[in-house]
């Protein structure tokens, strides 16, 4: 195990020789009962049985009683753990990782879904490429009603090991958590999510993994990431905290990047997110939230003060 700093959860290794499932599907949830049933159904529809898959809901002290949904739908197949108090996203993730006992860990937020074939395709990827530490598939973005909004980029035409994974994953956050599967031993070695990042904690984690392991890719869109006003992303746009933490994540992971290309990768990442912040500014303006729009524009310039970013800010706020 590497020396894990205190701001990252230590994921304790399991007893050697103990019988283990291949999968741990860990479902962190907090006050999202309206989606939890769909999430659980998406996993149970692909359930290979308890010997192969461990399924557990880890409730971050919700007030909307997810235990009732777990009991009704899981009927004993899905275990349930409730935090004694609200821990926040990254600490709840740490609980998920420590409670996982499968060899492959799938963190599936209580408002996201695994689409048909997810576990079969991803299992095969790990079987065919034993050196990979993690693998992700394409994902679709869905709205609160489950309508598909967009599909993530095709990184490779066929299933396999992603070339230049570290550079590709550091330039832009391409992986939504429900599309990612990580070997438990990887978390044991590298530590869990960084608790200094309430947002973008996943991006930093995936880049850290890519800096130490090959990463697999599955071109089928087998995961669904839900966008809604109360999602972690949605909650943090009005004050631009999403962008502030994205900037912090870049600062953190630049030390994992190859020295020869780190500067260029960081510049590209900063330009990408500067333009993304301008898009958030446009969205805040559409919501008639001027202060939120200005906060996003301010973050855009903090990412990168380039003529292109400046011009985009002007275009967002004016008819120019």
């Amino acid at each position, binding site marked *: 195990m590497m020396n894990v700093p205190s701001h990252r959860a230590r994921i304790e290794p399991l007893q050697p020789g103990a019988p283990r499932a291949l999968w741990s599907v860990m479902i962190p949830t907090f006050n999202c009962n309206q989606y939890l049933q769909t999430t659980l159904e998406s996993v149970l529809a692909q359930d290979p049985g308890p010997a192969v898959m461990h399924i557990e809901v880890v409730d971050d002290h919700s007030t909307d009683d997810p235990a009732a949904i777990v009991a009704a739908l899981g009927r004993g197949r899905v275990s349930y753990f409730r935090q004694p108090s609200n821990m926040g996203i990254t600490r709840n993730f740490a609980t998920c990782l420590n409670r996982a006992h499968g060899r492959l860990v799938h963190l599936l937020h209580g408002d996201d879904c695994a689409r048909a074939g997810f576990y079969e395709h991803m299992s095969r990827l790990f079987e065919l490429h034993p050196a990979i530490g993690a693998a992700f598939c394409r994902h679709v973005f869905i709205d609160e009603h489950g309508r598909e909004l967009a599909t993530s980029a095709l990184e490779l035409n066929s299933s396999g090991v992603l070339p230049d994974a570290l550079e590709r994953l550091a330039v832009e956050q391409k992986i939504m958590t429900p599309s990612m599967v990580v070997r438990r031993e990887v978390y044991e070695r590298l530590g869990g999510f960084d608790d200094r990042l309430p947002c973008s904690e996943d991006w930093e984690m995936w880049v850290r993994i890519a800096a130490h392991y090959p990463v697999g890719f599955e071109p089928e869109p087998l995961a669904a990431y839900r966008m809604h006003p109360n999602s972690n992303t949605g909650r943090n746009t009005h004050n631009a905290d999403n962008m502030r933490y994205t900037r912090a994540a870049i600062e953190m992971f630049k030390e994992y990047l190859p020295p020869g290309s780190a500067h260029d990768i960081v510049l590209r990442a900063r330009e990408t997110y500067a333009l993304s912040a301008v898009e958030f500014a446009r969205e805040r*303006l559409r919501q008639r939230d*001027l202060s939120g729009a*200005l906060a996003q*524009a*301010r973050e855009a*310039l903090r990412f990168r*003060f380039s*003529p292109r970013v*400046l*011009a985009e*800010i*002007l275009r967002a*706020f*004016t*008819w*120019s």
Partner: protein
Amino acid sequence: MRAQDASIRVGLIGCGAVARLYYMPALRELEAAGSIEVAALLDPVAGHAALLHEAFPRAQMARQLPDLPRQGFDLAIVASPHSLHAAQTIELLEAGVSVLCEKPMATSVDDARAMIRAASVGPGLLAIGLVRRYFPATRMIRHMLALGTLGDITSFEFSEGFASFDWPAASRGYFSKREAQGGVLMDTGVHALDLLQWWLGKIAVLEYADDAMGGIEANCLIRCRLECGSTGEVRLSRDCALANRYTVRGSRGWLSWQAGQVDQFEFGFADSAQVVQARPRDQSASNFEQSFLSQLRNVIAALRGTEQLQVPAAEGIAGIELIENCYRQRSLMAMPWLDDREIARGRELNGGRMAGVVAR
């Protein structure tokens, strides 16, 4: 505070040019919408009030403030000659009436402070009429500057002046030293200095010169410094055609606003010739008249407790402090067309000082 649905009764104190040209259309629109009722019109010249009375026939007319019943209106718009602003505003505030006082809020800092004190002890609000703050263009420029889009501010130049003076002033007081207390600085200068500080923060006056020789100034030049150390100048005139541009330059680019342009400004990049003609997406006003409407709407919303005042008195006083500071260090503008005898007389009338600055 008035109830959300109650119509606010408005008294117009001073029925001169600004009341007729700008407040009257805005008040008519608000009255038609049921938001306000114009209840009183006051002007010492009966004919001035009578002109507005045609638009507001239910309003009571009066020549003096004591002639109006204080319980008769909730909000007074003080649009009288500058020198009357303080006394009238204080009298109204002490009677519990809220006031929107046209700029300049007063002709001295002491008067402005007395107005703020009166507002602080009574139930009425005190707002200052600085209508340019309601232009979408000036608001967006403020946001762009606050975002730091220009980088470090390196200089600024504000100029405003026309070869022919065409403001249809209703009284001679506009040009009287005793009544107006100042010329172009006390008039256009209030807007210019307000925008300067609203956009760029507090400024210090380094040098001030004007062409007044016993009367009021038609031209003035202010050299000033920002807190960051960068310097710039403000040049104003009532009889000289100037560029009529407010330009701010920074390490990354520049902004330029055509004085009076409600919904447009220019943005240029330091390292390219590209100039963007920018029109704010905020479409709250597309002309001067609509900006007066926006100003009144804000004051009414503040009276109803649904919005904060956009220009409270505490912000209006900043410009008065600067103007007082300018007049305190006044020197005579260099005017090369004067002969030695005229210059000597000019010095004599201006307290003996003659600046090196030249009127352009």
